């Protein structure tokens, strides 16, 4: 029997990441913390930045800094060109139909607030309902609570099971005649659960309900195709996908964005202004009032290009390998309980330890050079669902390695040694 089995044509070959080379792109990783090599496993909070991103920011301020969309001079022309090139890069990254559907915001939070305050205020009224899930980040809960309170509408929450998976049948039941909007995470930041978006979006669309997807955690971890998903809005944050803080994106279907009232008033979002009447600018500028965060937008474009060069499928496979490796090691440690055991899961490993508070675990791991998040992860309702105050969360990135997972496992044993 030949060992060189033929690869079936239906299986695509995904290139493995050259992590050793990748790590050289991230200068911050090369440091000691408390005398130990840094093991950065807090990527769901924020990712580190590759040189391409750091250099894009520096290059802009050294060579191109000027205001966009107005100057006739060379610098303004260059700045505008780079800024708009970023928009096209993000369009490609999200597989959007048109680059006017890409609105730059400060981040996922602002993108969600934008939709709640424009589409939401226009279409949600007294007695109506907004449907979310029990695994949402606070940023996909509170904007809808504010809207519902203002309008006398009701926030409905689709439940999750003990593995941290959405109960899809319950979700469908909650889609009622008064449901005017659905907002859901693509990938849960606290549990790692990947939601069955296509099915959920189909269910909502069958009832003519639009769907916003919080893609903050998914965008750096898997290929996102907003047209294949058929979502109406998709929100992402630059800093969670190896780009800068303070920059994010709202994708929206052009037909919806066209009909929405503006979010903020100011420069750049207008076509003409008189004291009698202001005519708003066309998309996407209608939603980009004021001088934007030009440098970080350009650097976000560099981050997107970096991810595309490595390949989202390769990144997904690499992180899947790390998660599987970490899960089988950590679930064996006595006293450890993994929180969030969905079949479809990525990037995030949350756990608790018997009789040891996550905060104490975090302190001991920190002394081992290991950065993890401890706390409620801005998802307090998730903690309440599982009856725990907090978890320890290790979250993986494209530069993490199996030896780093081994260091985490060793660190957990150290916790037992010190506190057990």
């Amino acid at each position, binding site marked *: 029997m030949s060992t060189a089995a033929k690869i079936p044509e239906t299986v695509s070959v995904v290139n493995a990441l050259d992590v050793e080379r990748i790590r050289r792109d991230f200068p911050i990783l090369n440091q000691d913390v408390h005398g130990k090599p840094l093991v950065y496993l807090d990527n769901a909070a924020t990712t580190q930045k590759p040189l391409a991103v750091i250099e894009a920011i520096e290059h802009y301020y050294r060579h191109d800094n000027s205001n966009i969309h107005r100057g006739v001079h060379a610098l303004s022309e260059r700045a505008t060109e780079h800024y708009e090139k970023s928009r096209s890069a993000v369009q490609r990254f999200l597989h959007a139909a048109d680059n006017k559907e890409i609105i730059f915001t400060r981040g996922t939070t602002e993108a969600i607030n934008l939709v709640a305050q424009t589409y939401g205020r226009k279409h949600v009224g007294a007695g109506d309902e907004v449907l979310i899930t029990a695994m949402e980040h606070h940023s996909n809960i509170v904007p809808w609570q504010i809207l519902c309170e203002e309008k006398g509408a009701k926030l409905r929450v689709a439940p999750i099971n003990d593995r941290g998976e959405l109960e899809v049948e319950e979700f469908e039941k909650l889609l009622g005649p008064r449901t005017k909007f659905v907002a859901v995470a693509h990938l849960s930041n606290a549990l790692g659960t990947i939601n069955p978006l296509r099915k959920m979006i189909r269910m909502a669309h069958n009832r003519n309900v639009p769907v916003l997807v919080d893609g903050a955690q998914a965008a750096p971890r898997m290929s996102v195709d907003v047209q294949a998903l058929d979502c109406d809005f998709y929100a992402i944050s630059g800093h969670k996908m190896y780009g800068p803080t303070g920059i994010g994106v709202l994708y929206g279907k052009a037909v919806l964005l066209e009909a929405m009232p503006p979010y903020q008033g100011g420069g750049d979002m207008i076509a003409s202004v008189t004291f009698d009447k202001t005519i708003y600018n066309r998309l996407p500028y209608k939603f980009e009032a004021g001088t934007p965060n030009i440098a970080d937008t350009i650097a976000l474009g560099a981050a997107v290009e970096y991810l595309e060069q490595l390949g989202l499928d390769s990144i997904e496979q690499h992180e899947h390998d790390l998660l599987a490796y970490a899960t089988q090691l950590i679930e064996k440690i006595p006293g450890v309980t993994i929180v969030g055991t969905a079949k479809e899961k990525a990037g995030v490993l949350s756990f608790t330890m018997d009789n040891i508070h*996550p*905060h104490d675990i975090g302190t001991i791991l920190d002394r081992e050079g290991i950065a993890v998040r*401890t*706390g409620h992860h801005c998802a307090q309702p998730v903690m309440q669902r599982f009856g725990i*105050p907090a978890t320890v969360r290790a979250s993986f990135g494209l530069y993490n390695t199996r030896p780093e997972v081994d260091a985490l496992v060793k660190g957990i044993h150290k916790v037992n040694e010190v506190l057990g």
Partner: protein
Amino acid sequence: MSELRELYQEVILEHSKHPRNFRALDAANHKAEGYNPLCGDHFTVYVDVQDGAIQDIAFQGAGCAISKASASMMTQSLKGKSAGEADELFTKFHDLVTGHGNGDAMGKLAVFSGVSEFPLRVKCATLAWHALRAALRGDQEAVSTE
């Protein structure tokens, strides 16, 4: 490692696993909640003050080893003290865990000196004390570390 041992001293671990005066106090005439929104630690401190002196003191709630041990040892060290003395002790304790005091005349509470090497844990160590101060002042709102 030695800094970790300084932080998690045996006495502290023992109190965190077996906290003293860990109950509701029906006779309490002062009560307040302390809450750390960053980590979710949450304690209620009950105080029974008679003739200006702390007759009895107890606490309930959930938190990390440092916050729980601190609450437990606080209740032990305050019985019989006046409100003013309790406040003074808090000031000394705060100085100790922020690295400004030496732990003199603090009795067992001196074991918390190791916290000063972990600035992020100062809030844990002082959470119950903040609640105590609020209780004695009669504040109704839950006190927050933020």
